[in-house]
């Protein structure tokens, strides 16, 4: 296959960026999207140009490091698939593929397609955990957890923190990510004591970090490679509402 890639190039956080066209020949359908970029990058290096910077690590769809807008869709055309797991067999000869970084104030561009998602870490630091210092745990079987609850918690815990939800959201909101963590921990008995404070603190931090507000536009869930459901957001809202109404917890 022969493709034309239209890639966002930006030399640094404060530089202006623009889309640049690159023709790539000999794209094999068995290649992953990132392998195609590897091939292009090797050529660019030999041509004396700077290779395209993009984030990636595991290339197995689990670390959440990769991610780019491919033809206007976060992680590209395949549902429930990260960029690194997207294979070129989903493209056709002659396609023009536009590649852009995630765009959000909370995710400033570092270079080309690389953005800083540190804001997600801040949200988790604000309360996305269960306080259980090492050594303090009772036997693992002390509290049985109904399988449906455990499964649901797992479903939410599958979030890889890639940021596609923010990238896809017309409001630039990080609610799906925030809600996934609140849901994961809020569904487990171990997570109950901090359930409401966790929700309130994480949401307050989310809002303070320049993420947009959620209008339930529903663009995030289809973009999410791990299928985090929109209902998680309702769950988070419920916890926050309950905490607010009861006045039980004010954001720290």
């Amino acid at each position, binding site marked *: 296959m022969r493709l034309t890639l239209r890639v966002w190039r930006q030399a640094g956080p404060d530089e202006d960026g623009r889309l640049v066209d690159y023709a790539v020949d000999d794209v094999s359908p068995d290649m992953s999207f990132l392998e195609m970029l590897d091939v292009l990058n090797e050529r660019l290096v030999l041509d004396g140009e700077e290779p395209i910077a993009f984030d990636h690590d595991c290339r197995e769809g689990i670390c959440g490091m990769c991610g780019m807008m491919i033809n206007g869709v976060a992680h590209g055309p395949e549902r429930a698939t990260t960029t690194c797991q997207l294979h070129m067999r989903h493209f056709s000869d002659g396609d023009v593929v536009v590649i*852009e970084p995630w765009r959000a*104030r909370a995710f400033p561009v570092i270079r080309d397609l690389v953005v800083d998602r540190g804001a997600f870490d801040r949200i988790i630091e604000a309360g996305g955990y269960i306080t259980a210092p090492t050594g303090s745990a009772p036997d693992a079987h002390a509290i049985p957890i109904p399988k449906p609850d455990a499964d649901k918690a797992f479903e939410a815990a599958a979030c890889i923190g890639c940021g596609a939800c923010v990238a896809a959201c017309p*409001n630039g909101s990080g609610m799906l990510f925030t809600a996934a963590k609140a849901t994961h921990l809020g569904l487990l008995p171990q997570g109950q004591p901090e359930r409401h404070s966790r929700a309130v603190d994480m949401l307050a931090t989310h809002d303070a970090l320049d993420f947009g507000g959620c209008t339930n536009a529903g663009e995030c869930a289809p973009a999410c490679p791990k299928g985090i459901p929109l209902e998680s957001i309702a769950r988070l809202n419920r916890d926050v509402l309950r905490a607010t109404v009861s006045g039980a917890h004010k954001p720290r």
Partner: protein
Amino acid sequence: MAVTGGAMFLFVIGHMAGNLKVLFGPEAFNEHPKWLRSIGEGLLGHGGFVWIARVGLLLSLVLHMTAAIQLARRARTARPARYQHRRPVQGSYAARTMRWGGVIIALFLVYHLMDLTAGWLNPVGDLENPYGNVTADFRHWYVSLTYAVAIVTLGFHIRHGVWSALQTLGASNGARQRVLRGVALGVAVAICAGFLAVPFSVLTGLVK
């Protein structure tokens, strides 16, 4: 948003019910406002309920719009650089049109109040005879069209609004989600149908 939207949503339902009285002839329809004014008369005085409702609705509207503007502003701040290439709409169409839909509805509301509440823009403009005003309006196709457009926009707004409010208030969950979406759609369609019934009846001569 959810709370103020909810208040206005209740009003819209009441409004629609009132409108439908047009189908039962001029007396029934013209009685309706009188009845409204008489609600809680003993406690609130004549017309007291209507004024309370008006103040409540105005407040809801202002807060609703303020919140909407704030959200829109936040969204703009949250994404200072736009995408060069963006495939539109993966979620629902209704969700994507909330903002413009809201603006259209607001503009329509201004016209609507000047038309039928104040009577300034109405061909008849007799405040004692709403039935006459309404039927006079809808005999003009362009007035009916304006109303129809506004009502469909409102339908979209309500469809996403109802669902979104339930989501925001935390009522939605995995099992219920499908159902709630259906309910939102059903309610929106019913409201559209209820409101459109009036101009439709006038235009087709069912109501004279």
